[in-house]
Protein backbone atom coordinates (compact mmCIF):
# COMPACT_ATOMS: atom_id res chain seq x y z
CA UNK A 1 0.00 0.00 0.00
CA UNK A 2 1.29 3.41 -0.97
CA UNK A 3 0.39 5.20 2.24
CA UNK A 4 0.58 4.35 5.86
CA UNK A 5 -2.21 6.07 7.72
CA UNK A 6 -1.54 6.74 11.38
CA UNK A 7 -4.82 6.56 13.26
CA UNK A 8 -5.14 7.88 16.81
CA UNK A 9 -7.81 5.98 18.73
CA UNK A 10 -9.12 6.64 22.23
CA UNK A 11 -8.55 4.00 24.86
CA UNK A 12 -11.19 3.19 27.42
CA UNK A 13 -14.95 3.26 27.01
CA UNK A 14 -14.99 4.11 23.31
CA UNK A 15 -12.29 1.66 22.19
CA UNK A 16 -14.64 -1.33 21.86
CA UNK A 17 -17.13 0.73 19.82
CA UNK A 18 -14.31 1.73 17.48
CA UNK A 19 -13.19 -1.88 17.22
CA UNK A 20 -16.68 -3.03 16.26
CA UNK A 21 -17.21 -0.18 13.79
CA UNK A 22 -13.94 -0.92 12.00
CA UNK A 23 -14.86 -4.62 11.93
CA UNK A 24 -18.22 -3.91 10.36
CA UNK A 25 -16.50 -1.72 7.79
CA UNK A 26 -14.40 -4.75 6.85
CA UNK A 27 -11.29 -3.40 8.57
CA UNK A 28 -10.02 -5.92 11.08
CA UNK A 29 -7.86 -4.43 13.78
CA UNK A 30 -5.32 -7.12 14.76
CA UNK A 31 -5.48 -6.53 18.51
CA UNK A 32 -8.15 -5.49 20.91
CA UNK A 33 -7.35 -1.81 21.37
CA UNK A 34 -9.07 -1.74 24.74
CA UNK A 35 -6.96 -4.49 26.29
CA UNK A 36 -3.59 -4.01 24.70
CA UNK A 37 -0.78 -2.50 26.72
CA UNK A 38 0.94 -1.29 23.56
CA UNK A 39 0.74 2.36 22.63
CA UNK A 40 1.34 1.68 18.95
CA UNK A 41 -0.48 -1.19 17.23
CA UNK A 42 0.62 -1.83 13.63
CA UNK A 43 -1.96 -3.11 11.16
CA UNK A 44 0.08 -3.66 7.99
CA UNK A 45 -2.78 -5.44 6.19
CA UNK A 46 -4.86 -2.27 6.46
CA UNK A 47 -1.95 0.03 5.65
CA UNK A 48 -2.54 1.59 9.02
CA UNK A 49 -0.98 2.05 12.39
CA UNK A 50 -3.08 2.67 15.48
CA UNK A 51 -1.90 5.04 18.18
CA UNK A 52 -3.68 4.35 21.45
CA UNK A 53 -4.21 7.66 23.24
CA UNK A 54 -6.10 9.26 26.07
CA UNK A 55 -9.39 10.46 24.49
CA UNK A 56 -8.79 14.14 25.27
CA UNK A 57 -5.38 14.00 23.57
CA UNK A 58 -6.52 12.59 20.22
CA UNK A 59 -7.24 16.01 18.61
CA UNK A 60 -3.82 17.25 19.75
CA UNK A 61 -2.01 14.35 18.05
CA UNK A 62 -3.99 14.98 14.89
CA UNK A 63 -3.51 18.76 14.87
CA UNK A 64 0.25 18.37 15.16
CA UNK A 65 0.27 15.73 12.44
CA UNK A 66 1.80 12.88 14.46
CA UNK A 67 -1.46 11.09 13.58
CA UNK A 68 -3.14 11.55 10.18
CA UNK A 69 -6.58 10.53 11.36
CA UNK A 70 -8.21 10.24 14.74
CA UNK A 71 -11.38 9.30 16.50
CA UNK A 72 -12.47 11.90 19.03
CA UNK A 73 -15.64 12.71 20.91
CA UNK A 74 -17.47 15.89 19.93
CA UNK A 75 -17.19 16.83 23.63
CA UNK A 76 -13.39 16.94 23.37
CA UNK A 77 -13.50 18.77 20.03
CA UNK A 78 -15.82 21.43 21.44
CA UNK A 79 -13.64 21.89 24.50
CA UNK A 80 -10.24 21.88 22.78
CA UNK A 81 -10.96 23.88 19.60
CA UNK A 82 -8.22 22.20 17.54
CA UNK A 83 -7.50 23.00 13.89
CA UNK A 84 -8.53 19.67 12.39
CA UNK A 85 -11.01 18.43 9.81
CA UNK A 86 -14.14 16.89 11.27
CA UNK A 87 -15.06 14.44 8.52
CA UNK A 88 -17.64 11.98 9.76
CA UNK A 89 -20.15 11.51 12.56
CA UNK A 90 -19.47 7.91 13.58
CA UNK A 91 -22.70 7.69 15.58
CA UNK A 92 -21.01 5.83 18.44
CA UNK A 93 -20.66 6.74 22.12
CA UNK A 94 -23.82 8.84 21.85
CA UNK A 95 -24.56 11.24 24.71
CA UNK A 96 -25.30 14.95 25.18
CA UNK A 97 -23.96 18.06 26.85
CA UNK A 98 -26.50 19.39 29.34
CA UNK A 99 -26.97 22.02 31.98
CA UNK A 100 -27.93 20.25 35.21
CA UNK A 101 -29.18 21.56 38.54
CA UNK A 102 -31.43 20.90 41.52
CA UNK A 103 -35.15 20.60 40.67
CA UNK A 104 -35.94 23.84 42.53
CA UNK A 105 -33.24 25.83 40.74
CA UNK A 106 -34.03 29.56 40.32
CA UNK A 107 -31.83 32.18 38.60
CA UNK A 108 -29.37 33.68 41.08
CA UNK A 109 -27.64 37.04 41.17
CA UNK A 110 -24.13 35.59 40.86
CA UNK A 111 -24.55 32.35 38.94
CA UNK A 112 -21.78 29.76 39.28
CA UNK A 113 -21.40 26.78 36.97
CA UNK A 114 -19.06 23.87 37.63
CA UNK A 115 -17.79 21.68 34.78
CA UNK A 116 -15.09 19.41 33.49
CA UNK A 117 -15.52 21.37 30.25
CA UNK A 118 -15.00 25.03 31.19
CA UNK A 119 -14.69 26.27 27.57
CA UNK A 120 -17.92 24.58 26.50
CA UNK A 121 -19.70 25.97 29.56
CA UNK A 122 -18.50 29.56 29.20
CA UNK A 123 -19.14 29.63 25.46
CA UNK A 124 -22.68 28.30 25.89
CA UNK A 125 -23.66 30.88 28.49
CA UNK A 126 -21.95 33.73 26.60
CA UNK A 127 -23.94 32.87 23.49
CA UNK A 128 -27.10 33.00 25.61
CA UNK A 129 -26.06 36.43 26.82
CA UNK A 130 -25.55 35.31 30.41
CA UNK A 131 -22.48 36.08 32.45
CA UNK A 132 -21.62 33.19 34.73
CA UNK A 133 -18.60 32.24 36.77
CA UNK A 134 -17.23 28.90 35.59
CA UNK A 135 -15.43 26.60 38.02
CA UNK A 136 -13.30 23.82 36.55
CA UNK A 137 -13.61 20.45 38.28
CA UNK A 138 -11.96 17.17 37.34
CA UNK A 139 -14.68 14.69 38.18
CA UNK A 140 -17.80 13.93 40.25
CA UNK A 141 -19.19 17.22 39.03
CA UNK A 142 -22.67 16.23 40.28
CA UNK A 143 -21.41 16.96 43.77
CA UNK A 144 -21.10 20.69 43.12
CA UNK A 145 -24.81 21.68 43.33
CA UNK A 146 -25.44 19.25 46.18
CA UNK A 147 -22.89 20.84 48.49
CA UNK A 148 -23.34 24.40 47.26
CA UNK A 149 -20.14 24.92 45.26
CA UNK A 150 -22.12 25.92 42.19
CA UNK A 151 -25.81 26.34 41.41
CA UNK A 152 -25.59 24.43 38.13
CA UNK A 153 -23.19 22.14 36.29
CA UNK A 154 -22.44 21.43 32.63
CA UNK A 155 -21.72 17.77 31.99
CA UNK A 156 -22.16 14.84 29.62
CA UNK A 157 -25.37 12.87 30.08
CA UNK A 158 -25.68 9.38 28.64
CA UNK A 159 -28.63 7.67 30.36
CA UNK A 160 -29.38 10.28 33.00
CA UNK A 161 -29.13 7.69 35.79
CA UNK A 162 -26.33 9.44 37.67
CA UNK A 163 -28.09 12.76 37.81
CA UNK A 164 -31.41 11.15 38.83
CA UNK A 165 -29.79 9.15 41.59
CA UNK A 166 -28.32 12.36 42.96
CA UNK A 167 -31.64 14.16 42.88
CA UNK A 168 -30.66 16.46 40.01
CA UNK A 169 -32.52 17.34 36.80
CA UNK A 170 -31.48 18.21 33.27
CA UNK A 171 -32.37 21.88 32.76
CA UNK A 172 -31.19 22.45 29.16
CA UNK A 173 -29.54 20.42 26.43
CA UNK A 174 -26.50 22.16 24.92
CA UNK A 175 -25.53 19.79 22.13
CA UNK A 176 -25.64 16.16 21.04
CA UNK A 177 -22.32 14.38 21.29
CA UNK A 178 -20.98 11.43 19.31
CA UNK A 179 -17.55 10.27 18.22
CA UNK A 180 -16.17 11.89 15.08
CA UNK A 181 -13.59 10.94 12.51
CA UNK A 182 -11.07 13.78 12.36
CA UNK A 183 -8.13 14.43 10.04
CA UNK A 184 -4.97 16.50 10.07
CA UNK A 185 -5.07 19.46 7.68
CA UNK A 186 -2.07 18.27 5.68
CA UNK A 187 -2.88 14.55 5.70
CA UNK A 188 -6.39 15.36 4.47
CA UNK A 189 -4.84 16.70 1.27
CA UNK A 190 -1.53 14.83 0.94
CA UNK A 191 -3.19 11.44 1.57
CA UNK A 192 -6.63 12.36 0.37
CA UNK A 193 -7.29 9.09 -1.48
CA UNK A 194 -6.52 6.94 1.56
CA UNK A 195 -8.45 9.27 3.84
CA UNK A 196 -11.49 9.33 1.53
CA UNK A 197 -11.44 5.53 1.18
CA UNK A 198 -11.43 5.06 4.95
CA UNK A 199 -14.19 7.66 5.25
CA UNK A 200 -16.38 5.84 2.73
CA UNK A 201 -15.76 2.42 4.30
CA UNK A 202 -16.68 3.69 7.76
CA UNK A 203 -19.70 5.59 6.46
CA UNK A 204 -21.25 2.34 5.23
CA UNK A 205 -20.82 0.78 8.67
CA UNK A 206 -22.22 3.66 10.71
CA UNK A 207 -25.38 2.71 12.61
CA UNK A 208 -28.38 4.65 11.32
CA UNK A 209 -29.98 6.96 13.83
Amino acid at each position, binding site marked *: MAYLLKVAVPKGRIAKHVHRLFNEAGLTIPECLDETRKFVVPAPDLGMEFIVAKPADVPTYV*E*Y*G*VADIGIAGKDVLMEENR*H*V*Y*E*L*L*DLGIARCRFSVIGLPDWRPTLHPRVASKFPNVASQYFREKGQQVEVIKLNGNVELAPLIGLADRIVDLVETGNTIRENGLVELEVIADVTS*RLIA*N*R*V*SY*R*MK*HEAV*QRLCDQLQRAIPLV
Partner: protein
Amino acid sequence: MAKPKVFEKPTGVKDYLPEAVAKLRTIERNVLDCMERWGYRQIMTPTLEYYDTVGVASSTSDEKLFKLLDKKGTTVVLRSDMTAPIARVVASLLKDHPLPLRLSYHSNVFRAFEDEAGREAEFFQTGGELVGDATADGDAEVVALAIAALKAAGVQSFKIAIGHVGFLHGLFEEALPDRPDAQDALKDRLLQRDHVGFRNALRRFSLSEFDRDRLESVLRLRGGREICERAERIAEHEKARDAVRHLREVWDALCDYGVSGHVLLDLTVIGDFSYYTGMTFEGYAADLGFPVCNGGRYDNLLRQFGRPAAATGFALKTNRILELVGEPTALPPRRVLVAYSARRRTEALRHAADMRSRGGTVVVTQRVDRDPNFGAAGCAASLGYDDVIEFL
Protein backbone atom coordinates in the same frame (compact mmCIF):
# COMPACT_ATOMS: atom_id res chain seq x y z
CA MET B 1 1.54 35.10 36.59
CA ALA B 2 4.65 34.63 38.70
CA LYS B 3 7.65 36.78 37.85
CA PRO B 4 9.46 35.12 34.94
CA LYS B 5 12.70 33.27 35.58
CA VAL B 6 15.73 34.85 33.91
CA PHE B 7 15.95 32.27 31.11
CA GLU B 8 12.27 32.52 30.15
CA LYS B 9 10.77 34.38 27.21
CA PRO B 10 7.14 34.90 26.23
CA THR B 11 5.29 31.91 24.77
CA GLY B 12 5.46 31.73 20.99
CA VAL B 13 8.76 33.55 20.38
CA LYS B 14 12.06 31.85 19.62
CA ASP B 15 15.83 32.22 19.75
CA TYR B 16 17.82 31.09 16.74
CA LEU B 17 21.34 29.81 17.35
CA PRO B 18 24.05 30.17 14.65
CA GLU B 19 23.36 26.82 12.94
CA ALA B 20 19.64 27.57 12.66
CA VAL B 21 20.34 31.11 11.45
CA ALA B 22 22.69 29.77 8.77
CA LYS B 23 19.94 27.46 7.57
CA LEU B 24 17.29 30.19 7.71
CA ARG B 25 19.50 32.60 5.77
CA THR B 26 20.19 29.97 3.13
CA ILE B 27 16.46 29.38 2.65
CA GLU B 28 15.74 33.12 2.64
CA ARG B 29 18.51 33.84 0.09
CA ASN B 30 17.54 30.97 -2.20
CA VAL B 31 13.87 31.90 -2.19
CA LEU B 32 14.46 35.64 -2.68
CA ASP B 33 16.97 34.91 -5.48
CA CYS B 34 14.38 32.67 -7.10
CA MET B 35 11.73 35.41 -6.94
CA GLU B 36 14.25 38.00 -8.20
CA ARG B 37 14.72 35.83 -11.30
CA TRP B 38 10.95 36.01 -11.84
CA GLY B 39 11.18 39.81 -11.67
CA TYR B 40 9.88 40.22 -8.10
CA ARG B 41 11.87 42.91 -6.30
CA GLN B 42 12.29 42.90 -2.56
CA ILE B 43 10.61 45.43 -0.31
CA MET B 44 10.85 46.18 3.43
CA THR B 45 8.21 47.89 5.55
CA PRO B 46 8.16 48.84 9.24
CA THR B 47 7.40 46.41 12.05
CA LEU B 48 4.80 48.78 13.50
CA GLU B 49 1.70 49.96 11.66
CA TYR B 50 -1.48 51.77 12.68
CA TYR B 51 -4.31 49.56 13.82
CA ASP B 52 -6.88 51.65 11.92
CA THR B 53 -5.12 51.27 8.57
CA VAL B 54 -3.04 48.14 8.09
CA GLY B 55 -4.40 46.41 11.20
CA VAL B 56 -8.02 46.62 10.10
CA ALA B 57 -7.23 45.84 6.45
CA SER B 58 -5.18 42.71 7.18
CA SER B 59 -6.69 39.26 6.90
CA THR B 60 -5.74 38.48 10.52
CA SER B 61 -8.73 38.37 12.83
CA ASP B 62 -8.89 41.14 15.39
CA GLU B 63 -8.22 39.02 18.46
CA LYS B 64 -5.04 37.65 16.88
CA LEU B 65 -3.51 41.07 16.18
CA PHE B 66 -0.68 42.09 18.48
CA LYS B 67 -1.78 45.55 19.65
CA LEU B 68 0.14 48.26 21.46
CA LEU B 69 -0.60 51.85 22.49
CA ASP B 70 1.75 54.68 21.58
CA LYS B 71 2.32 57.69 23.87
CA LYS B 72 -0.73 59.51 22.51
CA GLY B 73 -2.97 56.52 23.05
CA THR B 74 -3.21 55.57 19.38
CA THR B 75 -3.42 51.83 18.79
CA VAL B 76 -0.60 50.40 16.75
CA VAL B 77 -0.09 46.79 15.68
CA LEU B 78 2.92 44.62 15.07
CA ARG B 79 2.45 43.65 11.42
CA SER B 80 0.57 40.36 11.17
CA ASP B 81 1.43 39.77 7.51
CA MET B 82 3.16 41.67 4.71
CA THR B 83 0.28 41.88 2.26
CA ALA B 84 -1.53 44.81 3.89
CA PRO B 85 1.66 46.88 4.40
CA ILE B 86 2.61 46.26 0.77
CA ALA B 87 -0.86 47.38 -0.32
CA ARG B 88 -0.32 50.58 1.68
CA VAL B 89 3.03 51.19 -0.05
CA VAL B 90 1.68 50.43 -3.52
CA ALA B 91 -1.14 52.92 -2.95
CA SER B 92 1.10 55.65 -1.49
CA LEU B 93 4.86 55.68 -2.17
CA LEU B 94 4.46 53.71 -5.40
CA LYS B 95 1.16 55.30 -6.47
CA ASP B 96 2.66 56.72 -9.67
CA HIS B 97 4.41 53.49 -10.51
CA PRO B 98 2.60 51.77 -13.37
CA LEU B 99 0.96 48.42 -12.74
CA PRO B 100 1.53 45.52 -12.73
CA LEU B 101 3.99 45.56 -9.84
CA ARG B 102 5.90 42.49 -8.73
CA LEU B 103 7.20 42.65 -5.17
CA SER B 104 8.78 40.14 -2.79
CA TYR B 105 9.62 40.11 0.91
CA HIS B 106 11.16 38.15 3.73
CA SER B 107 10.02 39.33 7.10
CA ASN B 108 9.08 38.48 10.64
CA VAL B 109 5.38 38.87 11.41
CA PHE B 110 3.46 38.77 14.69
CA ARG B 111 0.32 37.29 16.18
CA ALA B 112 -1.09 37.72 19.67
CA PHE B 113 0.21 35.21 22.20
CA GLU B 114 -1.51 31.88 22.51
CA ASP B 115 -0.84 29.57 25.40
CA GLU B 116 0.44 26.68 23.42
CA ALA B 117 3.64 25.49 21.87
CA GLY B 118 3.49 25.33 18.10
CA ARG B 119 1.29 28.42 17.76
CA GLU B 120 3.86 31.08 17.24
CA ALA B 121 3.64 34.75 18.16
CA GLU B 122 6.56 35.73 15.89
CA PHE B 123 7.47 33.90 12.73
CA PHE B 124 8.98 34.38 9.30
CA GLN B 125 7.18 34.71 6.02
CA THR B 126 8.80 34.82 2.60
CA GLY B 127 6.49 35.72 -0.23
CA GLY B 128 5.54 37.63 -3.33
CA GLU B 129 2.69 39.87 -4.49
CA LEU B 130 1.55 40.55 -8.05
CA VAL B 131 -0.45 43.79 -8.04
CA GLY B 132 -2.48 44.98 -11.02
CA ASP B 133 -3.06 41.72 -12.88
CA ALA B 134 -6.60 40.35 -12.79
CA THR B 135 -6.10 37.48 -15.22
CA ALA B 136 -6.00 33.73 -14.71
CA ASP B 137 -2.46 33.91 -16.05
CA GLY B 138 -1.59 36.19 -13.13
CA ASP B 139 -3.00 33.64 -10.67
CA ALA B 140 -1.13 30.83 -12.41
CA GLU B 141 2.11 32.85 -12.28
CA VAL B 142 1.77 33.25 -8.52
CA VAL B 143 1.05 29.54 -7.99
CA ALA B 144 3.95 28.58 -10.26
CA LEU B 145 6.19 31.00 -8.38
CA ALA B 146 5.10 29.53 -5.04
CA ILE B 147 6.06 26.10 -6.39
CA ALA B 148 9.43 27.39 -7.61
CA ALA B 149 9.98 29.05 -4.22
CA LEU B 150 9.18 25.85 -2.30
CA LYS B 151 11.67 23.98 -4.49
CA ALA B 152 14.28 26.72 -3.98
CA ALA B 153 13.72 26.47 -0.22
CA GLY B 154 14.58 22.78 -0.42
CA VAL B 155 11.13 21.27 0.17
CA GLN B 156 11.17 17.95 -1.67
CA SER B 157 7.67 16.55 -1.66
CA PHE B 158 4.70 18.90 -1.61
CA LYS B 159 1.25 19.59 -3.03
CA ILE B 160 -0.66 22.79 -3.70
CA ALA B 161 -4.46 22.66 -3.34
CA ILE B 162 -6.32 25.35 -5.29
CA GLY B 163 -9.88 26.52 -4.74
CA HIS B 164 -11.99 29.54 -5.66
CA VAL B 165 -14.31 31.43 -3.31
CA GLY B 166 -16.59 32.41 -6.21
CA PHE B 167 -17.74 28.84 -6.75
CA LEU B 168 -19.20 28.45 -3.27
CA HIS B 169 -20.62 31.99 -3.27
CA GLY B 170 -22.44 31.20 -6.51
CA LEU B 171 -23.57 27.73 -5.52
CA PHE B 172 -24.90 28.86 -2.13
CA GLU B 173 -26.76 31.79 -3.69
CA GLU B 174 -28.32 29.47 -6.21
CA ALA B 175 -29.36 26.77 -3.73
CA LEU B 176 -30.25 29.08 -0.83
CA PRO B 177 -31.52 32.28 -2.50
CA ASP B 178 -32.32 35.17 -0.12
CA ARG B 179 -31.06 33.20 2.87
CA PRO B 180 -27.77 34.95 3.69
CA ASP B 181 -27.76 33.57 7.26
CA ALA B 182 -27.93 30.01 5.99
CA GLN B 183 -25.21 30.74 3.42
CA ASP B 184 -22.97 32.21 6.12
CA ALA B 185 -23.59 29.24 8.41
CA LEU B 186 -22.44 26.85 5.67
CA LYS B 187 -19.37 28.97 4.88
CA ASP B 188 -18.53 29.12 8.56
CA ARG B 189 -18.71 25.32 8.87
CA LEU B 190 -16.34 24.92 5.90
CA LEU B 191 -13.97 27.51 7.32
CA GLN B 192 -13.93 25.57 10.61
CA ARG B 193 -13.21 22.38 8.58
CA ASP B 194 -16.34 20.92 10.16
CA HIS B 195 -17.84 18.65 7.50
CA VAL B 196 -20.13 16.98 10.03
CA GLY B 197 -21.53 20.37 11.03
CA PHE B 198 -21.89 21.27 7.33
CA ARG B 199 -23.98 18.15 6.64
CA ASN B 200 -26.04 18.65 9.81
CA ALA B 201 -26.77 22.26 8.80
CA LEU B 202 -27.92 21.07 5.35
CA ARG B 203 -30.38 18.70 7.03
CA ARG B 204 -31.75 21.54 9.18
CA PHE B 205 -32.36 23.86 6.22
CA SER B 206 -35.30 21.87 4.79
CA LEU B 207 -33.92 21.73 1.26
CA SER B 208 -35.02 19.65 -1.68
CA GLU B 209 -33.15 16.38 -2.03
CA PHE B 210 -31.53 17.75 -5.20
CA ASP B 211 -30.17 20.85 -3.44
CA ARG B 212 -29.00 18.92 -0.41
CA ASP B 213 -27.18 16.36 -2.52
CA ARG B 214 -25.41 18.89 -4.67
CA LEU B 215 -24.39 21.00 -1.68
CA GLU B 216 -23.10 17.93 0.10
CA SER B 217 -21.15 16.83 -2.97
CA VAL B 218 -18.99 19.96 -2.61
CA LEU B 219 -17.07 18.07 0.07
CA ARG B 220 -15.92 15.61 -2.59
CA LEU B 221 -14.84 18.09 -5.25
CA ARG B 222 -11.17 17.22 -5.05
CA GLY B 223 -8.85 16.08 -7.81
CA GLY B 224 -7.48 17.23 -11.15
CA ARG B 225 -8.98 19.14 -14.09
CA GLU B 226 -11.83 16.59 -14.31
CA ILE B 227 -13.52 18.00 -11.22
CA CYS B 228 -14.27 21.20 -13.16
CA GLU B 229 -16.91 19.28 -15.14
CA ARG B 230 -18.39 17.86 -11.95
CA ALA B 231 -18.45 21.35 -10.46
CA GLU B 232 -20.25 22.73 -13.52
CA ARG B 233 -22.88 20.01 -13.26
CA ILE B 234 -23.85 21.06 -9.74
CA ALA B 235 -23.88 24.87 -10.13
CA GLU B 236 -25.38 26.99 -12.89
CA HIS B 237 -25.02 30.32 -11.13
CA GLU B 238 -22.96 32.78 -13.14
CA LYS B 239 -20.47 33.36 -10.29
CA ALA B 240 -19.90 29.64 -9.93
CA ARG B 241 -19.51 29.16 -13.70
CA ASP B 242 -17.02 32.04 -13.88
CA ALA B 243 -15.05 30.54 -11.01
CA VAL B 244 -14.84 27.13 -12.66
CA ARG B 245 -13.85 28.65 -16.01
CA HIS B 246 -11.16 30.65 -14.23
CA LEU B 247 -9.83 27.58 -12.41
CA ARG B 248 -9.67 25.67 -15.67
CA GLU B 249 -7.62 28.47 -17.22
CA VAL B 250 -5.30 28.52 -14.20
CA TRP B 251 -4.92 24.74 -14.45
CA ASP B 252 -4.09 24.89 -18.18
CA ALA B 253 -1.52 27.63 -17.59
CA LEU B 254 0.04 25.57 -14.79
CA CYS B 255 0.32 22.66 -17.24
CA ASP B 256 2.27 24.95 -19.55
CA TYR B 257 4.49 25.93 -16.63
CA GLY B 258 5.07 22.17 -16.28
CA VAL B 259 4.05 22.10 -12.61
CA SER B 260 0.53 20.65 -12.64
CA GLY B 261 1.91 17.49 -11.02
CA HIS B 262 2.20 19.45 -7.80
CA VAL B 263 -1.33 20.81 -8.01
CA LEU B 264 -4.74 19.51 -7.06
CA LEU B 265 -8.04 21.31 -7.24
CA ASP B 266 -10.19 21.36 -4.12
CA LEU B 267 -13.22 23.60 -4.05
CA THR B 268 -13.35 23.54 -0.25
CA VAL B 269 -10.02 25.45 -0.04
CA ILE B 270 -11.46 28.86 0.69
CA GLY B 271 -9.17 30.75 3.04
CA ASP B 272 -10.98 33.72 4.52
CA PHE B 273 -14.22 34.60 2.71
CA SER B 274 -14.15 38.27 3.68
CA TYR B 275 -10.59 38.74 2.40
CA TYR B 276 -10.01 36.56 -0.63
CA THR B 277 -12.02 37.40 -3.73
CA GLY B 278 -11.08 34.69 -6.21
CA MET B 279 -8.64 31.81 -6.43
CA THR B 280 -7.12 30.69 -3.12
CA PHE B 281 -4.50 28.06 -2.43
CA GLU B 282 -2.66 26.27 0.33
CA GLY B 283 0.55 24.21 0.16
CA TYR B 284 1.35 21.05 2.09
CA ALA B 285 4.60 19.16 2.53
CA ALA B 286 4.89 15.47 3.34
CA ASP B 287 5.98 14.87 6.95
CA LEU B 288 4.81 18.21 8.25
CA GLY B 289 1.51 18.56 10.08
CA PHE B 290 0.93 22.22 9.19
CA PRO B 291 0.54 23.96 5.80
CA VAL B 292 3.80 25.41 4.41
CA CYS B 293 2.36 28.16 2.26
CA ASN B 294 -0.86 29.90 1.36
CA GLY B 295 -2.06 32.57 -0.97
CA GLY B 296 -4.78 33.80 -3.27
CA ARG B 297 -6.46 36.70 -4.95
CA TYR B 298 -7.52 39.73 -2.89
CA ASP B 299 -8.96 42.30 -5.28
CA ASN B 300 -10.63 44.42 -2.57
CA LEU B 301 -7.62 45.22 -0.41
CA LEU B 302 -5.92 47.95 -2.47
CA ARG B 303 -9.19 49.90 -2.63
CA GLN B 304 -9.06 50.33 1.16
CA PHE B 305 -5.80 52.25 0.68
CA GLY B 306 -7.21 54.43 -2.11
CA ARG B 307 -5.80 52.73 -5.20
CA PRO B 308 -8.25 50.10 -6.44
CA ALA B 309 -6.32 47.30 -8.14
CA ALA B 310 -6.49 43.57 -8.62
CA ALA B 311 -3.85 41.65 -6.67
CA THR B 312 -2.74 38.12 -6.01
CA GLY B 313 0.08 36.73 -3.90
CA PHE B 314 1.45 34.05 -1.61
CA ALA B 315 3.58 33.56 1.50
CA LEU B 316 5.81 30.68 2.53
CA LYS B 317 5.79 29.82 6.22
CA THR B 318 9.55 29.87 6.45
CA ASN B 319 9.77 28.65 10.07
CA ARG B 320 7.90 25.50 9.19
CA ILE B 321 10.15 24.91 6.20
CA LEU B 322 13.14 25.30 8.51
CA GLU B 323 11.93 22.27 10.49
CA LEU B 324 11.54 20.32 7.30
CA VAL B 325 14.63 20.77 5.15
CA GLY B 326 17.95 19.13 5.93
CA GLU B 327 21.26 20.83 6.55
CA PRO B 328 22.53 23.06 3.71
CA THR B 329 24.58 21.01 1.25
CA ALA B 330 27.30 23.66 0.93
CA LEU B 331 30.12 23.12 3.43
CA PRO B 332 30.42 25.75 6.15
CA PRO B 333 33.37 28.12 5.50
CA ARG B 334 36.83 27.22 6.85
CA ARG B 335 37.51 29.00 10.11
CA VAL B 336 41.13 29.93 10.87
CA LEU B 337 42.51 31.14 14.18
CA VAL B 338 45.41 33.64 14.09
CA ALA B 339 47.17 33.75 17.46
CA TYR B 340 49.72 36.46 18.15
CA SER B 341 51.99 37.84 20.83
CA ALA B 342 52.16 41.58 21.55
CA ARG B 343 55.51 41.73 19.77
CA ARG B 344 54.23 40.37 16.42
CA ARG B 345 50.73 41.91 16.44
CA THR B 346 51.21 44.19 13.37
CA GLU B 347 52.33 41.27 11.27
CA ALA B 348 49.52 38.98 12.52
CA LEU B 349 46.71 41.49 11.97
CA ARG B 350 47.99 42.31 8.48
CA HIS B 351 48.00 38.60 7.65
CA ALA B 352 44.43 38.23 8.95
CA ALA B 353 43.23 41.25 6.96
CA ASP B 354 44.83 39.81 3.85
CA MET B 355 43.10 36.46 4.33
CA ARG B 356 39.73 38.13 4.93
CA SER B 357 40.09 40.24 1.79
CA ARG B 358 40.42 36.97 -0.11
CA GLY B 359 37.18 35.70 1.46
CA GLY B 360 38.59 33.75 4.40
CA THR B 361 37.00 33.56 7.85
CA VAL B 362 39.63 34.52 10.43
CA VAL B 363 39.42 34.88 14.20
CA VAL B 364 42.30 36.73 15.91
CA THR B 365 43.36 36.22 19.49
CA GLN B 366 46.19 37.45 21.59
CA ARG B 367 47.04 34.13 23.18
CA VAL B 368 46.05 30.52 23.08
CA ASP B 369 45.85 28.34 26.14
CA ARG B 370 47.55 25.56 24.31
CA ASP B 371 47.67 22.05 25.63
CA PRO B 372 51.39 21.20 25.41
CA ASN B 373 50.47 17.62 24.43
CA PHE B 374 48.90 18.73 21.13
CA GLY B 375 50.54 20.12 18.05
CA ALA B 376 49.08 23.11 16.22
CA ALA B 377 46.61 20.90 14.31
CA GLY B 378 45.32 19.21 17.45
CA CYS B 379 45.00 22.57 19.09
CA ALA B 380 42.91 23.89 16.17
CA ALA B 381 40.53 20.93 16.30
CA SER B 382 40.12 21.16 20.06
CA LEU B 383 39.12 24.82 19.79
CA GLY B 384 36.76 24.25 16.85
CA TYR B 385 38.91 25.75 14.07
CA ASP B 386 40.15 24.22 10.85
CA ASP B 387 43.60 25.72 11.23
CA VAL B 388 45.75 27.78 13.61
CA ILE B 389 48.44 30.21 12.44
CA GLU B 390 50.77 31.41 15.15
CA PHE B 391 52.66 34.70 15.36
CA LEU B 392 54.24 34.17 18.77
